[in-house]
């Protein structure tokens, strides 16, 4: 991977690709071959055609587990806007907490990372799990095509898996950045709002169009405390 580490080599950065320097750099610094980004990469990298063909999502959810209050509003908004019901199990974002574990390890948030190389899409035998070009390349499930094999659920490299099994309606589903929220009057999707972001009272989840750093969690679990109104009062505890 030595050639991929040379982030200061101007020759590797192609302005014609339409990629920002950060997108290019983070793509190569991520999960190796799987982290190829949208657009065409020029230069001397041999990539399989399928890898080059997956365009990056135009939207991502970032969270701050040190800020989250564990109220589960995001989960209830997700199930409400997508399914018209209140359910934690049908939420495509999962907040798990153990009140007896000291802060900050008491809360974990599992939001879909809209992976640049989505394993859930790769393994789907029917194309139900797919990249939706009409909706900013969000990785989502066409439930009409889902045959319930759960390969996507098992393929998600993260715990808890972000591709979920809807055991009520018997199909897979996942975060679509609210592209399809029939029970909400707001416009969702990458050009619109996300229900979890809209309802979070702590502003502990946010939406970005920038591709997060792929290595580890630092790109997806970020500091959202430093600029809010409470921070301006100097009231946040001294944590980073």
């Amino acid at each position, binding site marked *: 991977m030595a050639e991929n580490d040379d982030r200061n080599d101007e020759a590797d950065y192609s302005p014609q690709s339409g990629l920002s320097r950060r997108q290019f750099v983070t793509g190569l610094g991520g999960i190796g071959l799987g982290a190829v980004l949208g657009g065409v990469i020029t230069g001397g990298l041999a990539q399989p055609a399928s890898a080059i063909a997956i365009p990056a999502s135009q939207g991502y959810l970032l969270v701050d587990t040190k800020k989250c*209050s564990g*109220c589960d509003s995001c989960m209830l908004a997700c199930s409400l806007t997508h399914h018209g019901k209140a359910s934690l199990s049908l939420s495509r974002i999962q907040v*798990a907490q153990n*009140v007896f574990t000291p802060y900050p390890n008491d809360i974990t948030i599992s939001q879909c990372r809209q992976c640049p190389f989505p394993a859930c899409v790769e393994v789907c035998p029917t194309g139900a799990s797919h990249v939706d070009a009409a909706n900013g390349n969000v990785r989502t499930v066409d439930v009409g095509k889902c045959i319930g094999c759960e390969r996507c659920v098992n393929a998600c490299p993260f715990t808890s898996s972000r591709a979920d099994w809807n055991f009520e309606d018997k199909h897979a589903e996942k975060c679509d950045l609210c592209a399809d929220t029939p029970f909400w009057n707001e416009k969702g999707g990458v050009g619109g709002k996300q229900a979890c972001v*809209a*309802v979070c009272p702590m502003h502990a989840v946010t939406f970005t169009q920038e591709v997060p750093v792929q290595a580890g969690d630092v790109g997806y679990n970020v500091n959202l405390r430093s600029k809010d*109104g409470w921070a301006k009062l100097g009231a946040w*505890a001294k944590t980073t």
Partner: protein
Amino acid sequence: MGGGYAGKILRIDLSAKAVSSIPTSDYEEYGGGHGMGSAIFFDLCKDKTVDAFDPGNVVTVMTGALQGTLTPGASGRCEVQGIGSQGYPKQWFTRTNFGGRFAGNLKYAGWDGVVLEGKASSPVWVDIRNGDVVIRDAKTDGLWGLDTFETEKAIYSLVGGSGSDGWFEIGGSRDAGRTTQKPAVLSIGPAGENMCVSGCLVHEGGGGAGQTGMGSVWGSKNLKAISVLGTGDVAIADPKALMEARAWAQKGFWSIEDPKNLMGMWSNLPAGPADSAGAGRAQGCLACSKNCHGGRGAKGLAPGSHCVDGGYGMFATAVNPKTDQDNAVTTDRLQRLGINAWEMCGSLPWLYDLYKQGILGPGKEIDSNLPWDECGSGAFNKAFLEAMAYKKDIGADLALGVARCAEKWGRYETDTTSGVLALQCHGYARHYDARTETEWGFGSMVSDRDINEHDFNWCMYWYVAFAAMYKMPFIMPAEQLVTMVAEKLLPYKDPKMLDYSEDGMYSDASVKLVAWHRHYSRFWKQSAIYCDWAIADFVSPYREGYSGLTPEYEPKFFNAVTGKNMTFEDGMELGRKIWNMDRAIWCLQGRTRDHDKLDEWQFLTGATRPIKASYEVPYTMPALVDGKWEYAYIDGRKLDKARTEDWKSRFYAFEGWDDNGVPTKATLEKLGLTKVAAALQAAGKLS
């Protein structure tokens, strides 16, 4: 039944170790929560004169339509009722409640509530996983004897954690349900197991149903814990309306992006960021947008411990300032033992005073070998709380509850007359001053317990008194404030209800204030179940002219979830019905007008506050002075016996009760409570 309800109530006969269900629709007319709990108690508790520890006592743990939904300041609430052990001189049928994730999980599991009858022959715990309900042995499962934290953690292991992909299947088949969540557990600690009246119910390490002694009632039934894990859903009648209501409400509630306070007071704020116990977060009950729990910092302070649960530690420090008292450690200990913090707040100053008088101590008239010379220290708190929970030393007598303990020591009359034992009424420690804050004092007087409802307490007392104390500008002139708030007090809308002057407190308008508050809380706050720490929202710095979200808030969410068309006034009328049912139950328990009584010191002493460790600031409240509205300093006032008795008579008349405080047949029949009237008739209570 419309949206929001699960449709079934779980019924557990602990004596027979049998499980069955009741259709929620049987009790639909009561709305949910408290209303259903009272009606179920009325039907199932055959002899309502039994003691709290009698197996014939029926305990209900109820949710309503809103629980488990996206409704802020409601979704997490759970209402517990039954004959409580704390009431004095009679153990009144009473209520307590708590937040967190328990109510939501009950709903997701397909249950609107749980009814507990009888007494198990040996300690048990109830394991609810969706529709599968098993009564398990608390001893062989190693739970009996554990503190509340260890109990909950043990149940996490017993019920199971995450599967290999982070999702945990329950029900044994792929489509039976999955979750990433831990079970929600409500348990008792040693205090409840030992049937100490200070024993309470604890959830999530600190969401506590603190008062009433309900923990000891569970102990008397050999019930250690209820665990519930649900993977189902709650049907919502109008999801789009609910999302819109949420967006509307969030604009009117506390915002972390734009923190506004009133008079320098942050009412019900997210506690965590400001928690001095250490680096921490705010923590919230299900779907809440206020997130008032906090702590869980580096010192491990349990989430609910930021609130009043931490008050005992503060009282201990103030009673006898010591430097080594770690409030986080003390509060966690209290939570683990499952002790009612407020009972401790009332008893400790009294006990310390007896020590200083030389009446209590090693070898004294009241023999106690607790380290009273270092009262308030961490070591003392540990010894004291453990004595309470395990009935050691004076804990054996205090297990009767502080009122009965004082009676046993022959000190009740003396010490509640001087005010050294500052019980307000019915065996409950004084909370807000009955001599000044009318709706609190008189409302508690005609009820079963310290009402603990802060609706007027924030805007009529704290915001005003704080501004007065720190010489800050009031948000608006007194007349404007009372007029604005009175507009929300449907159906009465009388600003004179908010006249806290001495004449005002005995007026007919004051009768209306107390009646309004009883009716409002019985339905909107305890049956629809809106959290006392969020609603009523009378005054908000986020809204035009400071006009809070009440009375739009309450029906807006209720109707979006249920699909009903309830008005605020409809809810008030239903609250009046439920309140009358409660009053009738107390009458069946033997209630007379003589029980509607405040402890003696409130009539005799005008001292500012007898408790040294009080959190209160001097009472400045809205009042009519010579016909003009002012923010008046009203501290130091004594209650007047004759005027109080006269107020009671007018209150009874207003409520349609006879002069003994018993609802009349006509009143009950007009409210659709014919069977309640028949029961009172059969018991010879109707005049």
